[in-house]
């Protein structure tokens, strides 16, 4: 069912992978909205692109710069990793290549994806209004939007993929935690980050998710039974979906996801609800109590984890080093190569884990996370999906990114619970695209994708 990929593939079979690559590169290098989109271009060896029957044969793909790619510089958009050439392949790279895809380059992101940390090469501007950012995975999103590549593989830490998709009017899919291997994903927050996909179409997300999914024994969180993202729905459901309807599907609308939203955003969202209803779904507002503190616990947990995960950047084995005659001093100086916001994040997280603070904040957040997960379990006993605007805020002003913080309960609660969620483009606000988020229960990825596909089809032309 993948649409863009299919059309690109047809093109490739005539002209060859090399031409497709040249074309993709040309688009990204010449279109003005693609400025800063790529941090490092790859230099692919086309003699190795041989799997003509591969699902992604000859398809150029952008991988975000926080995913390890062998022999291609990987910086996480940070000065501290400048010049780092991974000596190993991440799982994403391995699987994409095995299906014949060609890596075009490394997509620009926020530094270590941290919400208010600009990339060291500069932010990617929003193509609809260059005053604003294209999002934390902006380089990946823009390369898809500009038509350079049909898909980009990135990660949804801090909602990066869904936010970037929403801001740029494309589709961003975050699978169930563990459904795609994290081997090679340079995460700060191991318990919330997840390899995710940006594409023009829902169907392309599903196709690529099927390439990337499956059990990987190198990731302890990898699901033991692979999900089928394209055909993983139950028989009863399949019948409904196949008629392009959502007859009898129950959708919950967490009232507090929309709290504080602008009138126009609410109005747009109501139009989306109408579409779901017109498809036969039963929509109902609900209250998601635990989401009331999901932003705070997400902020505490991700910062705590990040303070540990970012400790390896000590200038000893790889990456940049600022010399000093004492190792500890060398490390402290080297770590000033992190941007200001990353430094703040580390100090914030370090402070939360200090023995006098940990019970007050971090351990409490972990308990509140249990409350949140339990409430989600009960919500999904009533509803098949939760929908909301992907974000109720406009994107950060590019030059003011450092003062921006993630405050979308629709993002943070989903990440804490590891749920599958997709952002489908729907209408605009102030001239900038907005997205509708559809979230499902754990491992209901295929249902989320099908529902999004049906909504996408029905809402065509309403962007």
């Amino acid at each position, binding site marked *: 069912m993948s649409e863009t990929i299919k059309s690109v593939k047809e093109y490739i079979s005539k002209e060859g992978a090399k031409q497709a690559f040249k074309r993709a590169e040309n688009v990204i290098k010449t279109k003005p909205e693609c400025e800063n989109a790529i941090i490092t271009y790859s230099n692919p060896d086309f003699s190795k692109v041989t799997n003509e029957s591969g699902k992604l044969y000859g398809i150029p793909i952008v991988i975000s710069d926080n995913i390890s790619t062998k022999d291609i510089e990987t910086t996480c958009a940070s000065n501290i990793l400048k010049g780092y050439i991974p000596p190993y392949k991440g799982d994403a790279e391995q699987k994409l290549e095995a299906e014949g895809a060609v890596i075009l380059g490394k997509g620009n992101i926020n530094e270590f994806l941290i919400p208010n940390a600009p990339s060291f090469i500069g932010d990617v501007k929003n193509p609809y209004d260059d005053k604003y950012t294209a999002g934390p995975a902006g380089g990946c999103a823009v390369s898809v939007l500009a038509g350079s590549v049909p898909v980009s593989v990135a990660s949804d830490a801090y909602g990066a993929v869904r936010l970037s998709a929403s801001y740029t009017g494309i589709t961003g899919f975050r699978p169930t935690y563990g459904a795609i291997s994290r081997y090679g994903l340079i995460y700060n927050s191991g318990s919330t980050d997840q390899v995710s996909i940006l594409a023009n179409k829902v169907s392309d997300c599903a196709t690529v998710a099927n390439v990337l999914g499956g059990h990987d024994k190198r990731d302890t969180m990898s699901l033991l039974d692979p999900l089928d993202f394209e055909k993983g729905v139950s028989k009863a459901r399949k019948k409904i979906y196949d008629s392009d309807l959502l007859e009898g599907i129950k959708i919950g609308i967490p009232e507090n996801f929309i709290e504080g939203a602008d009138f126009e955003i609410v109005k747009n969202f109501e139009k989306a609800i109408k579409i779901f209803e017109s498809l036969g779904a039963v929509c109902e507002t609900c209250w998601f109590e635990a989401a009331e503190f999901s932003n705070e616990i997400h902020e505490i947990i991700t910062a705590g984890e990040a303070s540990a995960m970012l400790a390896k950047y000590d200038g000893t084995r790889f990456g940049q080093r600022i010399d000093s005659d004492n190792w500890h001093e060398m490390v402290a100086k080297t770590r000033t190569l992190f941007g200001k916001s990353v430094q703040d994040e580390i*100090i914030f997280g370090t402070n939360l884990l200090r023995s006098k603070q940990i019970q007050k904040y971090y351990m409490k957040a972990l308990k509140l996370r249990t409350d949140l997960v339990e409430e989600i379990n009960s919500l999904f006993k009533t509803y098949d999906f939760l929908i909301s605007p992907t974000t109720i805020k406009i994107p950060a002003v590019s030059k003011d990114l450092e003062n921006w913080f993630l405050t979308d309960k629709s993002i943070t609660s989903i990440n804490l619970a590891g749920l599958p969620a997709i952002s489908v483009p729907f209408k605009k606000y102030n001239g900038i695209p907005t997205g509708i988020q559809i979230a499902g229960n754990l491992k209901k990825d295929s249902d989320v994708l099908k529902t999004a596909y049906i909504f996408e089809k029905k809402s065509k032309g309403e962007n």
Partner: protein
Amino acid sequence: MFDESYVKESAESAHIYINEEKLGEYTERLNERMKRIEKVLDIEPKTNKTTINPSDRSTVLREDVKETGLTHEEAMKNAPDEYEGAFRVPKII
């Protein structure tokens, strides 16, 4: 409210060098950040059970079977400094 010495301690613990004159700014930003999360101080969790990860199963173990790692060359490829095949670092204390 944290004072500058607290922030300095935290930064030292995190091995991030802060210029003395910038310490005030860092302190201000950290305090703002703490304000943003102060809400959790007033909430009582319903449970004592912590959730450290969305995965609810028992840790998956790896079979004790050797796998090929990196060649020595690959391991040292990104080394900022090297001494006889090891990573050279300045004195530690």
